[in-house]
């Protein structure tokens, strides 16, 4: 990406065009309006989350009877909701600590696998000469437009019934049980992530300087060696960008998890559990508010600490086209 901030020459802001008094007043007015509009948007965008957060810290009977804005008039503060929703034993309490672990177990491999596979593929597509290279790249690129809805039904039957062609079993059913079901979630997430991952990383890998690659080849480095020692360190920011992307996507995903992890407490992630609570216990706001925050906090930390990489990846992935 080449979106550098244009250098603003010092002092060009206020000198320049001859400004009459009226126009100066108008400019100041319009900039006041501008600031006001910006603040209004910012407030509207932040208030709902803020309200939820405040509510999650209020006692149950207060959440259910008064608005969260009354908190500031008579603040009463408790962590009981978090205690209940994370560790409570009652069936409706959430038991989110358990689902939190599930989310972690789902997310880690679902980020690592596509990251590694896509980096290798991107390198091959950018720096190894072979026949049909462009065709393969265009094929992978084009797969980005296939909505994952197109793959769900057959992929589920691939896991549960295997593949047979004309009565001959080419591939048996996976027959997974309990925690093993994580494997099919990882598999599905990896497959669905690859087209975009290859595309994004290819954008970076193909922009590495040609001289560097050729010098390495002349020195007798093999492709795996170049990939490991030169390419991987250089595209680390891109790997970080895609890693964050994929992390947010997998952690926040509901559809893939619903279908491949199911609703069981052994495999279902936080999102599935929360959606369930929102459906069946839609008025238990003390649990929903705290629960929503439990699910939000990890991606928010990742996002805020690594925002720089995320934005760079976003721009490279979308604007370059």
């Amino acid at each position, binding site marked *: 990406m080449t*979106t*550098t901030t*244009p250098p603003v020459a010092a002092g*060009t802001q206020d000198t*320049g*065009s001859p400004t009459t008094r009226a126009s100066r007043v108008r400019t100041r007015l319009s900039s006041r309006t501008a600031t006001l*509009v910006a603040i209004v948007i*910012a407030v509207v*965008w932040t208030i*709902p*989350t803020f*309200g939820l957060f405040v509510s999650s810290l209020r006692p149950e009977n207060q959440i259910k*009877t*008064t*608005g969260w804005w009354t908190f500031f008039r008579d603040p009463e503060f408790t962590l009981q909701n978090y205690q209940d929703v994370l560790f409570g034993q009652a069936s409706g309490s959430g038991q989110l600590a*358990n689902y939190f672990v*599930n989310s972690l*177990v789902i997310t880690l491999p679902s980020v*690592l696998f596509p990251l*590694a*596979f896509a980096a290798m*593929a991107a390198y091959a597509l950018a720096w*190894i000469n*072979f026949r049909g*290279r462009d065709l393969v790249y265009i094929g992978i690129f084009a*797969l980005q*437009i296939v*909505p994952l*809805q*197109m*793959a*769900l*039904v*057959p*992929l589920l039957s691939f896991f549960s019934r295997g593949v047979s062609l004309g009565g001959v079993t080419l591939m048996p059913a996976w027959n997974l049980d309990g925690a093993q079901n*994580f494997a099919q979630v990882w*598999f599905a997430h990896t*497959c669905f992530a*690859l*087209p975009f991952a*290859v595309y994004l990383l290819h954008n970076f890998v193909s922009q590495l300087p040609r001289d560097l690659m050729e010098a390495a080849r002349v020195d007798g480095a*093999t492709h*795996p060696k170049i990939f490991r020692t030169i390419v991987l360190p250089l595209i680390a920011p891109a790997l970080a960008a895609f890693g964050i992307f994929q992390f947010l996507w997998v952690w*926040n995903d*509901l559809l893939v998890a619903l279908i491949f992890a199911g609703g069981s407490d052994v495999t279902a992630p936080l*999102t599935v559990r*929360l*959606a369930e609570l929102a459906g069946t216990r839609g008025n238990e*706001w003390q649990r*929903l508010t705290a*629960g929503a925050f439990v*699910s*939000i906090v990890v*991606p928010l930390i990742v996002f*805020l600490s690594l*925002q720089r990489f995320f934005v760079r990846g*976003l721009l490279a992935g*979308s*604007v370059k*086209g």
Partner: protein
Amino acid sequence: MNFDFAAQTPKLMMLLWGLIAFAVVVGGLLVLLDVVPAFFARRREARLIAGSASGAPPRRAKPREGLFAIFFLLPTLLLLLIGLVVPAIRTTLLSFMDGGSQNWVGLDNYRWMFADDSIVRVLLNTLIWVTLVPLVATSIGLLYAVLVDKARLESVAKSLIFMPMAISFVGASIIWKFVYAYRGEGEEQIGLLNQIMVSLGGEPRQWLLDSPLNTLLLIVIMVWIQAGFAMVVLSAAIKAIPADIVEAARLDGVSPWQMFSQITLPSIRPAMIVVVVTISIATLKVFDIVRTSTNGNYDTSVIANEMYNQAFRYGQNGQGSALAVFLFVLVVPIVIFQIRNIRQQRREG
């Protein structure tokens, strides 16, 4: 504190297995690629030496680039084939079969889609979503990007709008459901929207039950999430406008509005198209918001939600597949539009 650590062990073991599998597959592949060619290279060298000793003409070593490429690409291509290409073809075939995928039914599933009133409603809702979300989200994102450009605390201001992107659709739906929460008339309201209604002298409403208003309120959630994306991309595009153009315009004494409509807008057109296209595609596939907020009841369902219901709740694989194919068909023209735009840019640029 009651947290059963023992119950977590099998999962963590599974995670460990997953990570081991990762190390073995990726590490193994790289080692394999390192060792095997080195082995062949040594053999070739030995043969060359032997050949030159016996006086036979040395065989020319053919570059084996293609072999490397195959191994580098193997995991990706295999997974894409199993996980995406074959399933997509199968889904297309299934869409011409009945619910149990036993008999061919021709175009019945597609006819059903446009004949059944509830499904027509679903298609209509999707149309409303895909018209409004890109339009509103992009407009707000652009407005905000322009307003905070070069302002004090710009990065903080941007983070506020951008933050919803880190929140799951499920989390966002809960956040907004709380805003729309309803308490009977006379009771104290706990939802912000109804509180505002009441303090303006109106009556509290069950927002999510009233069609078609409820669809609009769900759309608000999607706009809330996507505006940040639009803002970031457009803000970068605005900053990429060459400073001398902006400066020249300022010297000519253009008004802020002229600056916006004649300098900013044309300069960021390519980025605008990308934003609109990306948001449109994301909106077409929206599922989580509708499922979490209303479960598709009260006339709020959209294609992706209905597809899930048909295929995975009612066991109607044929109808579900037909909806998936239709979703794909809707995405294609948007993408073609984008590709044509990129080509045009390249020609101009």
